[in-house]
């Protein structure tokens, strides 16, 4: 199992610099949450780690020098957005998570089918397996896409806003599922409670740079939220749990 690493990475979209010399090392099995205001570079950081965008400068390991299917066997990626035009059945959407294990093959192996079943159950969408993806709510689609990422059975998982559009019950179920992942997890989120609940380290981003990082208890402070998010918020501590009230 490899560590995920960005070394002095710069990513630009036209004139705009999305990542500005970022260094990050995620150890195998480590759970890291990325937080920061809109446009701070969280999504681009995940894309760079997953080899989806190629940086103009710097090194990305291991995705930087691998073919796409090889990357997908090591790193699963849940994008922030997806849009479906055709009504694919949910189980086919999730089965696409097995693409990298046998690209071009017509039928799934027994292992593929088992991975799909396990992923559907873990994301709580087993009952939706025959439904067309176009007929699902935003929250249901989000869980299906999470199941697809889990079906990849990769040792590292990159999740962009995994709890967006979820109701409370499913948000908690998804967070519980993420906590049980034994591989490395990097999740970008605006849900600061979720970040504190899932991650052993929080990385704070602003203007394409990492401005702070450390354990949730030391990072989630009222002063930092005021400085980075420009809001007056209170931090409530309940045993191991941290709640942000804005």
């Amino acid at each position, binding site marked *: 199992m490899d560590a995920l690493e960005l070394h002095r990475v710069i990513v630009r979209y036209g004139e705009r610099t999305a990542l500005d010399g970022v260094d990050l090392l995620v150890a195998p099995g480590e759970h890291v949450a990325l937080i920061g205001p809109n446009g701070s570079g969280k999504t681009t950081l995940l894309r760079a780690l997953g080899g989806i965008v190629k940086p103009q400068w710097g090194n990305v390991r291991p995705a930087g020098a691998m073919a796409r299917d090889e990357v997908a066997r090591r790193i699963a990626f849940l994008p922030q957005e997806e849009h479906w035009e055709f009504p694919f059945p949910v189980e086919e959407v999730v089965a696409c998570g097995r*693409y990298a294990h046998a690209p071009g093959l017509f039928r799934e192996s027994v292992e593929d089918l088992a991975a799909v079943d396990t992923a559907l159950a873990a994301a709580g969408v087993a009952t939706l397996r025959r439904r067309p993806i176009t007929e699902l709510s935003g929250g249901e689609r989000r869980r299906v896409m999470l199941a697809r990422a889990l079906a990849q059975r990769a040792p590292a998982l990159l999740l962009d806003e995994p709890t967006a559009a979820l109701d409370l019950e499913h948000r908690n179920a998804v967070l519980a599922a993420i906590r049980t992942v034994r591989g490395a997890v990097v999740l970008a989120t605006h849900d600061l409670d979720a970040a504190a609940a899932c991650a052993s380290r929080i990385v704070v981003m602003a203007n394409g740079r990492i401005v702070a990082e450390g354990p949730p208890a030391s990072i989630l402070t009222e002063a930092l939220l005021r400085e980075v998010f420009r809001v007056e918020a209170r931090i409530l501590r309940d045993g191991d749990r941290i709640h942000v009230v804005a």
Partner: protein
Amino acid sequence: MTRARAVLLGAAVFAAAAAVVSPFLGATIDFSTVEGRFIFFELRLPRALLGLGVGAALATAGVILQAILRNPLATEYTLGVASGSAFAVVVAVVLGIDSLLKPYLGQPLVGMAGAVLVIWLTYRAARVRDRVPPHTLLLAGVALTYLFSAMILAVQYRATPADASRILRWLVGSLETTHRYVAPAIVGGAVVLGLAALLPLGRAFNAMGGGEEAAEGVGVDVRRVVRRGYLAASLIVGVVVAFAGPIGFLGLIVPHALRLLGLVDNRYLIPAAALAGGGFLALCDGFANLLPGAQLPVGIVTQLIGGPFFLALLLREKRRTY
């Protein structure tokens, strides 16, 4: 049996039935006579086989381009390939270039050259750094479609009455061929090669259904898949347009009809569209024999039959869903 396999099997049965029935529609063939055998083996059978090949190519191209562009209304005409191919053939007809080559090679070669030119132009116009985003591909294709359609009209307008009439007859789309089995063999070969390139991409196209980023996340090399799919679909369209003219509607109606029957998975949809498209065009050509008066070109018949058929399927689905 899953629904996808059932629909694929149904498409195969439909194609086989169409191939058998089509040559006999509108004619009583007496195999005991020389004339009867001539009509069947020299006229009707090659025509039915050409219909199977042309229909297979156009319907397959429709599925592929819809998957690449993630747009259910995309067809081979949306991306300018058919118009470019048609323009090349129209120019060749006016200048007499096609007759300089062997008749059964001139037209497809010119059609392919037109398709390759449009593929290159569209690709160059749509490329953003090392990517070809679907929306820029679509815009470039639509622009080239209008450009080549206008140029076809300009050439036709300036042509002699005889050439203008030939062009008009060819543009309507027809399976009339004087090359007997040469045309079906070339079109069939192009379809087989195209399907060999496209069938392994079925699951990649499924993964791309949620967007490029989602597909790359599960390991699809989207650039490679788009390039291969676009090239293969465009080249088979170039070959069939050269032989049969720009027959419309098939690339839209066949994939949609199959989707309305519940087949969305591209691994099954690609071969099912090839079979159903081939069967549909062969049948349409056969039905043209049943109409009174001079036989209508199949390009008109596909739209006369396809339009109401498609509407009926749509209404049935609407009643079921809403």
